[in-house]
Structures are given as C-alpha cells and as structure tokens.
C-alpha cells in the first residue's frame, strides 16, 4: 500500500476526531501529519498551549486511533503516554516510562531499576532498538506536562530530546504550557500551538453536547436554546472570569436547571429566550457559579461565615489569644502604650483612628489600612502582654470570675497557643520555626484575615476595630 512517499492517515479518522473535538481541526491535522509514519514523522515535537485547550485529550485520542488503524496501511504504530503529574520523582518518571513502553510492546522481561536518564536510555535502546522489529515499526512516546515534573534535574528535557536521535524509530512528544526559548537545546523542532478558544469556539464546543430534551420540547428546540444560552453565559461570566473550557462547561450545566425552571413549570416556552434570560438574571450574577467551593450547594445553606463558625468552635481562651495575636500583628509596637495601658489615661480612652485625626490636614501619602495588609510578625511575649491587658477589659462584662486562672503562662495558655498553631491560625515565622514551641524568643504571625477576626470579636462583644491604630 505504500505507493507514495507521503500520504495522510485515513480521512475518516481525522473527520471523526474533528467532530469529537470541534474547533481543533487544524491542530488535529498538523498533529497527524507530524506523527503518522506515512506522512512526515518528526523526531521531537513540542505541543504547547494554555490549560484545557485539548492538548492531552486530542493527542491521546489521535494516537489511539492511529494505532488501531495503521496495521492495514503497512505501519505498526505503538505509543505510550506518561503523565508527569503522576510522577513523584524523576526516577519515578523513568520507571514509569520503561514500564509503559514495555507494556505497549507486550514485553515480558522483568524490567530493571532505572535511576538516571542514561539508564533510561539504555533500557529504551534495549526495548526499541536492539530487539528486532518488523519493518514500518514506529513508536511515539508522549511526555505530558513535562514542564511540571517534580524533582526534575535541569537537563531532563534536553536529555529526553536526545532519545529520538539514538533510536531512529522513536518520536518523542512534549506537551507543555509554554516552552521557553531553546527548550530542547536542539534545533529545528516543530512546535504545535494549541491556541485558547474564542467565544465562538467555546459555544460551538459546548453546544455540541446538548442536555436531554426539556418537557414538551423537541430535542432540536432544546439544542437551539442551549446554544443561545451558552452564548449568554459566556457573555455574562466566562469573558470576565471563567476562561477555561471545563469551568465554562461547569457554569453552563450549573445554570441550566435554574434557567429552564420556567420551562419545566410551563410558564414560558423554550422559544422565549429573552424572557427566560430576564427571569434568570439573578442567577447570572451569582458569584458562586464561578467559584463553587468545595461544598455542594445544598450543604452550604446554613450560610454562616467563617468568623462565627470559628467563634462557636473555639473556647474562650484561644479566642482571646487569637484576637490578641491579631492586635499584635496589626498594631505597631509604638502604639502599645496608648492602646493597652490603663496607667496614664484611666479606664476610658479614645482609641481607633489614631489620636484626633480631625484637625490635621491629611498627609499626601494615603496609607493603606493596616488591616488590609499582611500581618506582621510579633514576639510571643508581646502578644501575651496584650492578652493580659485586653483580657481584663474584654471579660469585664463577663460575670464569671476566673479565680486562679489569672496566672499568666500557665499550661493552659501554652496549650491554647499550641492548638492555634496546629490549626495554622497562628504560625511561627523565621528560622526558629522548627524549634521549641514555647521558646519566647521566636516570632509569630497571625494567619487569619480581618473578616474572620471581626466576626470572632463581635461574638464576644468586642469591636476589634476600636483596638487598631493606623
């Protein structure tokens, strides 16, 4: 059958593939040309493009189909795909490569250990080069996401790119997000770009798989409605925030039931697109569609903020310690006396907003509110001092007296700090982070944000705002 030097694989394969993956016909054809042994097989190939542009899916699908069909055309095409995301170390990658290649070739010798690239080369040479293969044999080895490989030595990719020079029947494919210049350190490697989808692409891809027909509606009408609907979703959400195909698809499927609720209820017909759109307007503005969170929507109906949830969970002392830590993190040391000492000012002092901002003209440099900035490190002793100072005042309304609990530095305080640390609400910073937990010299930082703290403070009737000086 090999009557000409160059011919493309069966048109049927490419056509069906283009149907499964709309808007990728050019890429599919280019890929087929560069991989198909009968066309222009190259030694190395770099496929690049941003997340979820179909690189992995299309490569895998194409290779699987080509491998099925090549026999009748006088070629034997085998392939193996190694996903770097699943390889924990470089060594893991090498061994996975060897075992996958051996699997693809139905090789049944016991593979040996493989710790370096050179050992990998030896193994692959043994498998692919020194074992006699029928004429027309070709092997495609795909490294998916090789730019994300953990623990990779920096010579990894160039070394892998050499494999195809040593083994003539091998094509290596590298799938990456964006290749740096001189990625493989060899010249003239074909690069195949998978561009991001445009709006029309998005819509035509998603409308290729319409949902089941609505009641009293023909599948065709449903599909039409779905197409217009996806376009509307794209305008509302995707352009701004949800740029990948899966998240767009997710948004569409999540919105669809709410959007079509009037059709189910029989109040609107599926042809009244704009009326449906107006009816569903609120849902289009809902942010949770874009950031669905880890909980299924039904479970989050409680709607309690993190601050209040935390407030009910944490016992009193750790709660106060957390608030004191926040104050220590967000107030400058120089204000401590003003804020926390009752010595000079008597019990009632003016706090918050700094000492009388009113008269002075505002300075030119408007500073960003400290509570919006990241938290600063503080010394544990300082936080404990703040804790001791605010505790009396904050618990003044609390009738329960603490008796012998007043003593600072007793084991329960230590335990509370340790708990907060283990919950990562407080974190140690600096070199001593691994050292003794209660070492007073170490520095700490509070790890929760303003919203949570405000809720926590209000839980015990304290406006934390009053205790911050800008």
């Amino acid at each position, binding site marked *: 059958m090999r009557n000409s030097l160059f011919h493309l694989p069966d048109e049927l394969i490419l056509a069906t593939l283009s149907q499964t993956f709309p808007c990728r016909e050019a890429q599919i054809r280019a890929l087929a040309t560069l991989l198909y042994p009968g066309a222009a097989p190259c030694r190395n190939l770099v496929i690049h493009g941003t997340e979820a542009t179909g690189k992995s899916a299309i490569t895998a699908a194409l290779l699987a189909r080509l491998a099925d069909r090549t026999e009748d055309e006088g070629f034997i095409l085998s392939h193996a795909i190694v996903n770097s995301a*699943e390889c924990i*170390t470089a060594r893991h990658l090498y061994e996975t490569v060897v*075992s996958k290649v051996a699997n693809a070739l139905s090789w049944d010798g016991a*593979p040996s250990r493989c710790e370096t690239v050179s050992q990998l080369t030896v193994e692959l040479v043994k498998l692919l080069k020194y074992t006699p293969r029928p004429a027309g044999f070709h092997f495609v080895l795909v490294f998916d996401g090789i730019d994300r490989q953990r623990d990779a030595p920096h010579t990894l990719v160039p070394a892998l790119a050499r494999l195809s020079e040593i083994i003539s029947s091998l094509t290596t494919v590298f799938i990456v997000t964006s290749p740096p210049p001189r990625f493989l350190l060899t010249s003239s490697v074909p690069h195949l770009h998978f561009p991001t989808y445009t709006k029309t692409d998005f819509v035509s891809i998603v409308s290729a798989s319409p949902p089941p027909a609505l009641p009293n509606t023909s599948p065709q009408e449903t599909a039409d409605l779905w197409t217009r609907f996806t376009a509307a979703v794209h305008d509302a959400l995707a352009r701004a925030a949800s740029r990948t195909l899966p998240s767009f698809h997710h948004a569409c499927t999540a919105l669809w039931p709410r959007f079509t609720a009037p059709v189910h209820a029989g109040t609107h017909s599926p042809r009244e697109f704009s009326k449906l759109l107006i009816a569903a307007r609120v849902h289009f503005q809902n942010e949770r569609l874009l950031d669905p*969170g880890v*909980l299924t929507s039904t*479970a989050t109906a409680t709607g309690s903020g993190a601050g209040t949830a935390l407030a009910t*969970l944490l016992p009193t002392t750790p709660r106060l310690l957390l608030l004191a830590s926040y104050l220590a993190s967000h107030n400058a040391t120089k204000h401590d006396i003003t804020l926390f000492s009752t010595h000079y000012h008597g019990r009632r002092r003016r706090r918050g907003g700094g000492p009388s901002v009113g008269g002075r003209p505002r300075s030119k440099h408007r500073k960003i509110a400290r509570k919006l900035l990241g938290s600063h490190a503080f010394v544990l002793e300082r936080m404990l001092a703040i804790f001791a100072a605010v505790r009396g005042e904050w618990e003044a309304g609390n009738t329960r007296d603490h008796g012998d*609990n007043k003593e600072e530095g007793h084991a329960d305080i230590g335990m509370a700090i340790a708990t907060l640390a283990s919950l990562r609400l407080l974190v140690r910073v600096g070199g001593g982070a691994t050292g003794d937990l209660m070492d*007073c010299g170490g520095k700490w930082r509070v790890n929760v944000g303003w919203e949570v703290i405000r809720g926590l403070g209000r839980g015990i009737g304290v406006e934390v705002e009053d205790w911050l000086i800008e």
Partner: protein
Amino acid sequence: MDGNEDSGIFFEEDDHRAAYIFNADQPLSTQKQTPRPAKRRKVAKADAPRPHQDSSVELAFPPLFNGAEGSDAVRLRKQLYETAWPVLEDRIQHVLREANSNTLDEVTSFLQHAAEAETGKITAGFIITGPSIASQHLLFEQLGERLRTATRARFVRLRASEAPNLKAALKKIIQDATASGTDGEEVGDVEISHGGRKYLDYDLEALHVFLQQQQQQSPRVVVAFQDSEAFEGGLLTDLIALFHSWRDRIPFDLLFGIATSVELFQARLLKSTARQLYGAQFDVVQADSVLESVIKTAVAGSQAALRIGPSLLQSWVDRHRDQVAGIQVFISSLKYVYMCHFYADPLSVLLAGDGRLDRKLMQPEHIEAVRTLDSFKAQVEAAVEARQLNHAQSLLEDDDYLVAQILEQGQKRNEYLLRLLRSLHLVAATGLSSTSFTDLYILALSSGIDIDQSSGTVPLEDAVKRLRAEEFLSLINRLLMAVQTGSSDLGLDGWEPDAEELVGSLTDLRDEVDGLRERSKSNGTVLKSKYSAQSRVLRTTVVAQKVQLSQDTAIMTDEDKAFTKAVDALLDLLSENLNCGPIDNLFLHEAWVFDSKSPYRDVFVPCPDATFGRALSRPHDYLACACCAKANGGLASTLPTTAILYHLYLEAGALINVADLWSAYYALVGEESEPGLDERSALVCFYRGLAELRMMGFVKQSRKKADHVAKLKWLF
C-alpha cells in the same frame, strides 16, 4: 523479695516531695554510703514479716499512715480502685462512641451515594470536629472500622506527623490500603509485583495493580486526613491533584477532619484544586453535649463510686469551656482524681460496701483519722446542739461505737445518692427548669435541691402555679413516666415500687383534674386556678370589654377552686420529693467525695513560669537554708548566684549589658562583701548563673548590640 527490686514500680520517698535538693557539693563517696539498693532492701524487709501477702498489691499501693496501714486495708483500697475505675471507663467509652454514631451514619451513607454519582470530581466529606485534636482520634478510628465493614472500602488514615511530604504520604497510603486486608489473609506488607516489576513505594500504580488483583469489585479507597489543618497546604494540593488524575483508575474518596471551618480550609487550597473536590459538611456532636453525657454517666451516675465535689467539678466544666482541654482531658482528670483518692487517702476504704469493710480492718489510725474530719466535728457539734450528749461523748471516746457508726454510713450514703439522683431526674422530667443538667447537679451537690420560690436552689414553684390544666396533666404524666422508667444515662432504675405513695397521689391528682376539665368543658368555661387566673386577665384586656374583665377574676367556679387545690397538692408533693441536702451535710462525706483542687491543678495546669519566678525570687522557701531567711524575697548576697542574677535581671531594661551585670554582681559578692568571693570563683559562679538563666529562657544573646543579652521575659 529480692525480685521486687527490678520490677520498676518502686517509689522512693523523694518522689512525693515538692522540691528535691540536689547537693552537688556532697562528695560522691558519701552518696555511696547510702546506696539505693540498701534503702530498698530496708523497705522490703519491713514488709517481709507479714505473712502471705500478694506482693503485687503491696508494690502498687504503699501502706499509708507512715507505713502503719494494714495490708488488708491496702489491698482493699487497691481492689476498690480496680473495680471502680474500669467500669466507669467502659461506660465513658460507650458514651463517646455513641456520640459519634450519627456522624458515622451520615458519612457512610454519603460515601455510598457518592460512589454511584459520576461528577468528574473527587468526593470529599468535611467533618467539623472542633479544636480538640484528641477527640478526632476516636472518631477516625470508628470511621475506619465502619467503612471497612459497611462499604468494604479500603480505609487509610493520615496524620500530619506521619506524612511530612508527598512521598511519605503516598507510601503510607499505599501501605495501608494494601496491607489492611479485611479478610485477614494478607498480614503485614504485601509485596506487590506485576510481571516481575517491583514498584517504587510511592507509586500509585502499585495500588492500582493491587486493587485489580483483588477479586472484589472495584473497592473504593477512602483517604482520611485526620488533622487536615496541620498538613502543609502545598502537600494537600499535590495529593488532591494526584488523586484527581488517578481517579479513572483508582476510585478515591477523601475525608477531612477539620477543626476550624470549611471556609478557612478551602482558603488554604489553590482554587483549581478546590474545584476538583465536591462534598458535604458534617458536624460532630457539640463538645458541650458530649461533656454533659459524660458527666451524667460517669460523674453523676449511680455507677460512679467516688463523687467529685461541686467546686472541683465546676472548675473542670469552666476549664472545658474556656480552654482547649477537650473531653479527653476531662476524662483523664477524672481518672487522676480516682487514682489520687484511692492511692493516697487511707479513709477511702470506707467506700467498700457489702461486708468487705469490718471492725478488723479499722485500725486505731483509721479511727483517729476519722476524728480529725470536719464532718466528724460537725456531727459532734450537732449532737451537742441536739442535747444528745451521750451520743457525742461516745463518738469522741468509744472507738467501737464510732466504728459501728462508720459502718452504718455506707447505707446512708447510698440513700442520699439515690435521693439525689431521683430528685434530679424528676426535676429534669418536669421540664420547667432551664438549667442544664451539669449546672443542676453541681448546684444540688453544693447547696441541695429545694423548689421553694424565694429561698430554694431550683425555684420551680411559680412555674408550677402558672400551669394550665393541660400542662398540668402532661407534667403529671411526665413525672409518672420518669418514676416508672428511671434513667439509663444516670444508671437509675425505675422506682415505682418504692414510691407507691407518690405514684398514688399523682394518679389521683391526674384523675381529679381530668374530671374537672371535662366538667368545666361541658359548662363552657375554661379551667383555671387562682394563680393562673391573673395572667389570663392580662391576656384578655386586649380584646375583651372592661366590665367583663373584673368579673372574670372575681368569679371562680367550683371546678376552678378544686383545680387550685390540686395545684397546691402537687406543689406539696413536689417539694417533698424534689428535695435533698447538700453533699457536705453528710457525716464522713470526705471518704467518698473528692473536692480538692490542689493535686489536680498542679498536675494538669502547671504554671512553670510562676514556679520559676517564685523559686528564683524566694529560693529560701524551697531551700530552707539558714543564711537567707532574712532576705524575704529581697536581694541578699547569700542567695544562690542564679537567684541574685534574677533579681538584677528584674531591675534591668530590655537589653542588659553583661559587663554591668557582672560589676553589679561582683559588688554584691566580691571580696569586700560578706561572702567575700575572690574574682575568679565569683566569675565562675556568674557564668554558671547566666548560663542557667539562658537555659530557662530568660535571656538570649542579643544580635543588636555586642556584649549585651536580650531580656526575653517581662511578664511575671
């Protein structure tokens, strides 16, 4: 008895001292003159003459009364402890396991449903456990048991300490998922190999191959992150991404134990990772209600041999609410108190019931000890007050009389406790008091139960008076029910046979009021009592005309009068039955109530800072040396070096110049002064003292200024 020496549970005298003075100056040879083995032999010999004793008993509990306590008494104390605590511990475990059962059911069914749904995401259960890490342990253990049996899933429990990095975590997952065979066939590590290939120990392919080799149909793998906050955010992200990428071959489900909130947890993950999860939140039973059930069962319940006194119990409850001390700490406190009581209180033998306590066991020391008790004093004084002078005199002088009295107390104690628990149970059954059981119990122990409105501890009177007829009837039904069934939490059986009178009167009242209600219904009026009538007027003023109003209050039908009487009768019944005195009214209550905070606080809530501060500022209190007696917390040159430096330290600023410190110190102890140290030995002492201060965390080398040390502690 030489075998005792290496049994390891041998206590030295010094073990119980508050401070141990280590005298380094004493030459080694003198220490050798009283070597430890000799001491032990001496004790052993003292024990030796006693015939046929169980050596293990002797070893575990030393005889009290300075060793004069008889071996039978010692053995009895030990026996008492050994029968009292394990029973309780079992009950507590049961309560704790029960408390989790709802969560377990929910999680299991959630995972079962999740197995069916296809979402392209990983199922994740978020279990909100509260900040007490210790209680997560039991929950996850139970989860493991349950999921292995109910869903035949492979369950892997990960703790942050076991999984410091990705490799270690994967290794643990693979090991546990493959090793823990439900059928018990595979024991230990199974070597997974496929076609001669050995897998790296962090290669999930191994797990995949293993699962394929199992006959079982695609068992799911549940990975539970017990303390998910303690995990590195990056590690979690990596693991989740990995699970997600493998999910078409290995069906992973995840569980997260979360101490804070799902929002905070989610904030630590990458958005793209969070998107790969979907799940539901489960709240375990609130720590407060778990505490309440534990208190019901193990502290208040009839099975608790030892009573925890009200003030100690209150301090535990407060601590539970204020500190992160979880339920586990509460339980160990309880156990510790049991141990203390039976180990260190010779009078704890008085707790023995059913004839194990007899005249023979009571030594003169026991009797003497009883005579020192407060409750003994109170008893005698009460006898004198009541002009029972003979009784008082016999108590004081006649040992046999006293012993007879003591032996009677067991019965009295049981009666008291029964009355206490029944009253509490009835109060709870009325449903009229809003106080929680714990508070009620503490109140009852400290001041008794009395429902009188003005002077009582549980003022129910008004609430009872305000009852309408229907409420009245349902209250009586509740009370009857309570008497009939008792309370299983409290270990209280129904006591209908004992309470014939109460049951009879309650039933009569019920029948009567039922009849009254029927009658007034047929008359077209609403049954009311004298007490509820007023409140009814208040309600009617809004709608009704004024004329009718005044009539309404004035006219009491015969039925109403009868109902008023019935309410009064019920009140009388209640105040008679919901009644008991405070626990310290009882003679000899010290023998079975533990209400001292001191050993407990020292052990569970030590104050190292305060202790250091005290020891350093007033070393005389511990050393009792002759030279420093007059220092009285001040600075004196005879104090130990570290104490002197500590005093100087207190006066110094945040940065201390070491040279200044040295000159101040040398001025105090130098040649012209009383100790008259020469410079060389003073310098040695100085360095040693400074090094000790650094060891105790008071100072550290300052990086800001050369030759300075930074003050680390300024809170005292």
